[in-house]
């Protein structure tokens, strides 16, 4: 693989948020060590608040690790976001003052892509996101799920070589999630990007990924890795594969205890383990 293949290397990465108004110092993440290969579809599951978004911010170059080293294509992620990285965040990031078309074209225009190419990519993205007839609608007129699709399209059209997705399908219903999953796999194959997907759906992680990492309760560390060995040409129909149940079961096996622990962090989880 070339040097610009989109590979990630984290060594002893931790993140501690300094004490602020109303909270003491928060050990949010790590230490985390991981190598993600260029073109790999890598997913992360873990209890809420364990540091998944924090991890993604570090990989994006939006935030620097407190200790340890984070490299993207062999170069330290020090001076901000590298070229070729796209992200879809957990929160709605659509711009209310732009219609759907202009939202999706926003990044391409900033990058100076020529107009004909922008038209081509945007109309293609809108069609596979099911947004074509809403091209001139504004975000306030759309449902939360549709707004999230706008944000996904806005990132996909950039054809990043590293695609970071933070629970991008959270606002979508189950069927749409499956369809979006298929689209994500297609985009992944088409642009050959490295994908890092954070999800709370074990099924989604099991169906989409080459490898799924399970994170511990906060401060999040990797406690298990599951390699799926799905073919590259997979789609959502593999949920009918006999190995599918085994993979989700293994993920839940690793995650269950951590989920209980993280509930314990907010109080009252001991009762779950010791029924009176």
């Amino acid at each position, binding site marked *: 693989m070339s040097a610009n293949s989109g590979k990630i290397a984290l060594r002893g990465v931790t993140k501690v948020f300094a004490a602020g108004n109303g909270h003491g110092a928060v050990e949010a993440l790590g230490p985390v060590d991981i190598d993600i290969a260029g073109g790999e579809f890598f997913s992360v599951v873990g209890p809420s608040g364990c540091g998944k978004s924090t991890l993604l911010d570090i990989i994006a170059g939006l935030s620097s690790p407190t200790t340890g080293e984070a490299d993207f294509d062999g170069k330290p992620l020090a001076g901000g976001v590298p070229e070729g990285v796209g992200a879809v965040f957990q929160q709605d990031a659509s711009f209310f*003052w732009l219609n759907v078309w202009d939202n999706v074209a926003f990044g391409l225009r900033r990058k100076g892509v020529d107009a004909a190419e922008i038209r081509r990519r945007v109309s293609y993205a809108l069609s596979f996101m099911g947004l074509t007839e809403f091209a001139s609608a504004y975000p*306030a007129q759309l449902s939360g799920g549709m707004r999230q699709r706008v944000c996904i399209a806005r990132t996909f059209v950039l054809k990043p070589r590293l695609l970071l997705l933070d629970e991008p399908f959270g606002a979508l219903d189950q069927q749409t999630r499956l369809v979006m999953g298929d689209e994500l796999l297609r985009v992944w194959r088409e642009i050959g990007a490295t994908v890092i997907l954070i999800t709370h759906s074990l099924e989604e992680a099991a169906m989409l990924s080459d490898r799924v990492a399970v994170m511990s309760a906060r401060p999040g560390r990797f406690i298990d890795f599951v390699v799926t060995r799905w073919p590259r040409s997979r789609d959502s129909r593999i949920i009918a594969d006999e190995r599918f149940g085994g993979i989700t079961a293994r993920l839940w096996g690793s995650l269950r205890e951590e989920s209980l622990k993280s509930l314990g962090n907010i109080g009252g989880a001991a009762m779950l383990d010791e029924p009176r």
Partner: protein
Amino acid sequence: MIPRRLDPILLMVAVLALWQGLELIAGPEVVASPAVTIVHAIALVQKSGFWQDAAETGLAFALASVISIAGGLLLGLWLGLHRFAGDVADPILGSLYSIPKITLYPLILLIFGLGMSAKVAFGVIHGVLPIAIFSMNAVRGVPPIHLKTARMLRMSKLSIAITILAPAALPEIVAGIRVGVALTLLGTLIGELFAATTGIGFALIRATDVHDVADILALTLMLFLFAASINSLLHFGERRMRHER
């Protein structure tokens, strides 16, 4: 269900009914009836004296608005973009805003004397702070996720300001201008009530001195219509910018 489009008409009918009721209770020497007022207003707009007053007030109001908007925007945007300065200024602006402006009036008269500049100054001290406060909050209120998106796209500061901060903050800024302009008008008129020899505010005082009830109400009606149309115009612009519905 009554269509919402009819709401303003229903409101107007209710106001007219109340007004008429008030005239019946208080008597025509205290409140002129809507009909009398409207007839008087029509007569008023045919007099050149009225238009001289209106031009005086209009000029003072326009000058005061321009200064309020320019000053408020400069101050507010600067504070909004500078986190620390904004944190320091926020409570100060808040308390300045809550000072009854009337207490500054002697000071303004001392500085500007009687006439146009005093009216303008009085308009500005009413309007500039709300515009500054709204603009500051508009910029600070831009969701951090938008700035995160900008960083992902490796945009320059200038590009972020033009393509994200400005449009994201604009509706809120226009809301500030709407409030600020209304208060500027109020300030300008108060200036005329207190110490002027021209303008609609002065005409009002004159009408009060001679107890011309129809004149007072006709002038008030016209001021109301003027203020309401500016307000609706800006409100309409603001709604358009938010792209709701």
